[in-house]
């Protein structure tokens, strides 16, 4: 397994090195290792030295497509490594005319699902630094002081547990063999559970979540669909929303943010992943996706760029979720 990973790494590096060093691309967006083995962070590679730091492992979680808009102001052509979810984000950005696809070389990385450091820490406690992991096909073994083997699925990030499209779509090049679609996974499990509880409890649930919100807007900044130049949150004229962390203001922020992603959300789950206080933000966008599917037909943003986004079209005999 470890060997395969090294082989994979070489394959990836060789492929992108060719393009970067030949000048086909000016910049490669990838990942490098962070402080610890369970942290990988974005890498902006411009030369072969930078490429030495390039990494692809189970912690390369950041969706890099969000950087394209800014970086394209400074670079002519950019190469970008994309997991399944990331590739849908790129497609979505292209569809919203935020990114000129011609100026992007998309390298697809079929993704086996990434591991959640928070869960690893729960397993290992403060000893995490002393640990390592060995990844098998379906299992992950903690090495070092603990010798525990855990099913990979159990250690996945929440967003990966419900991912249906681990293989990138619409890329110029797939750098690794596809892992196959995972449509057997349940995407709306949590949403259904919440739908079923009484309204009062549901409100209490969301209240207890939203009142913890720091209003750091990381969910928004990390979201590849949030491409407004000035979010409604910041606007002074009109002032849609105040800055007080009042509960109703927090509700409005989160519901509106989710609603603004209606028809756009590519389910990359970055909103939830980056949230420092671990708000279950994916459930909001999942709810909207579920409703779109139920009412107006299956739509998965970023898969088919030719398909009309559900809120930009209609059928005269559309159903309504209210008594007409």
């Amino acid at each position, binding site marked *: 397994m470890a060997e395969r990973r090294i082989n994979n790494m070489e394959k990836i590096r060789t492929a992108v090195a060719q393009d970067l060093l030949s000048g086909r691309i000016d910049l490669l967006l990838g990942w490098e290792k*962070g*402080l*610890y083995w369970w*942290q*990988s*962070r*974005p890498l*902006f590679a411009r030369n072969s030295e930078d490429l030495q730091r390039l990494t692809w492992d189970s912690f390369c979680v*950041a969706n890099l497509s*969000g*950087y394209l808009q800014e970086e394209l102001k400074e670079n002519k052509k950019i190469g970008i490594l994309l997991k399944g979810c990331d590739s849908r984000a790129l497609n979505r950005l292209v569809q919203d005319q935020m990114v000129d696809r011609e100026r992007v070389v998309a390298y697809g990385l079929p993704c086996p699902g990434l591991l959640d450091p*928070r869960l690893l*820490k*729960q397993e290992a406690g*403060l000893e*995490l*630094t002393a640990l390592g992991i060995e990844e098998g096909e379906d299992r992950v073994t903690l090495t070092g002081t603990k010798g525990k083997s855990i099913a990979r699925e159990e250690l996945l990030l929440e967003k990966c547990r419900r991912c249906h499209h681990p293989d990138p779509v619409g890329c110029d090049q797939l750098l690794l063999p596809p892992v196959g679609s995972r449509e057997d996974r349940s995407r709306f499990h949590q949403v259904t559970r919440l739908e079923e509880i009484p309204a009062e409890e549901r409100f209490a649930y969301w209240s207890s979540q939203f009142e*913890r919100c*720091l*209003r*750091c*807007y*990381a969910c*928004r*900044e*990390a979201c590849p669909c949030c491409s407004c130049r000035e979010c409604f949150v*910041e606007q002074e004229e009109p002032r849609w929303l*105040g*800055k*007080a*962390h*009042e509960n109703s203001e927090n509700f409005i922020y989160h519901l509106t943010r989710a609603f603004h992603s209606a028809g756009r959300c590519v389910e990359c789950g*970055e909103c939830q*992943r*980056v949230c*420092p*206080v*671990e708000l279950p933000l994916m459930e909001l966008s999942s709810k909207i996706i579920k409703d779109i599917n139920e009412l107006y037909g299956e739509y998965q943003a970023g898969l088919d760029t030719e398909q009309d986004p559900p809120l930009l079209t209609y059928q005269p005999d559309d159903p309504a979720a209210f008594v007409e």
Partner: protein
Amino acid sequence: MTKYITSERLPELWARLADRGPLYLPVNEGTAVAFRAWEEGKEVNLEAVNSTVSPKEIFLPAWETYLKFERAGKKLALAPADANGLARPVTAFGLRPCDLRAIELLDLVFVEQDPPDELYTRRRKNTTIVALACSQPDPFCFCTAFGIEPTDAPGADVLAWKTGNRLFMEARTPRGEDWLEENSRLLQEAEGVEKPPPVESADFGLALEGLPENLKGRFEDPIWDQIYRSCLGCGICTYICPTCYCFDIQDYGHQEQGERFRCWDSCQFSHYTLTAGGNNPRPTRKERVRNRFLHKLQFYPERYEEFGCVGCGRCLRSCPVGIDMVSVIRALGGETVAR
């Protein structure tokens, strides 16, 4: 005089303290930990090293209203808002030594620097702080790099530490003594001389000596071009940080009535320095990231002769793109070779 309480009896202590006034302590929220007002059913976590969000909001709430207004025709009436949560004494329990140091740093701004900030000062004066010595550092801790002793908290009213099943407590200030006295019914005297067990240092091998001076001429250092790149421009680092204190002032209400409040703000937000005329001295993430780190490592030391960072490690854990104090200090060259 050292006193202690056994773990089983802690809930009794919480109930008693909460009876006296708001009691803030670290509780579990999912896998996150935050300082919350204690109430029955909250899951207190005294093991966690460094709550996800810092306890600064006990003194600098995320938002607080300070005046009310009314308008009729052309008339305007202003009145101070009732100060909230200050009627009864507050206990802040379980702050780690680094958090304590952070509060001392906030004091420099809000109490020492003229004019003192009444809102902050009143909360500070009204609160008894029981610090909790660390027994094991988190992978992200690097407080010793800033000279903080993980087993001591000079600024606290009471220092507590855990040894086995016992939570020892020792007063550090007269207020701490009073506090211990008030709760003596629940506490037992320690038999011998008890001290917090030593803890290994955590500093990531950082050498900070001379760093502020070193940074002086490096405002335009090209390294900043690399450091900021992956920044999302969110406010996580500033909001979880124990020493970040920026705030904004905003009005709420209608033409006829309403109130004015202040709330946290973040130097990472694009609108933070944007003037009404459209000028923005820190127009991109680059300037904003640079300002934040230089504020902690150069500007704060220049103004207050202390580093503006306490090595709590929260940004190392929570930054979603790996821009953290240790990485930045390393990038700036502040690392010893020895380690």
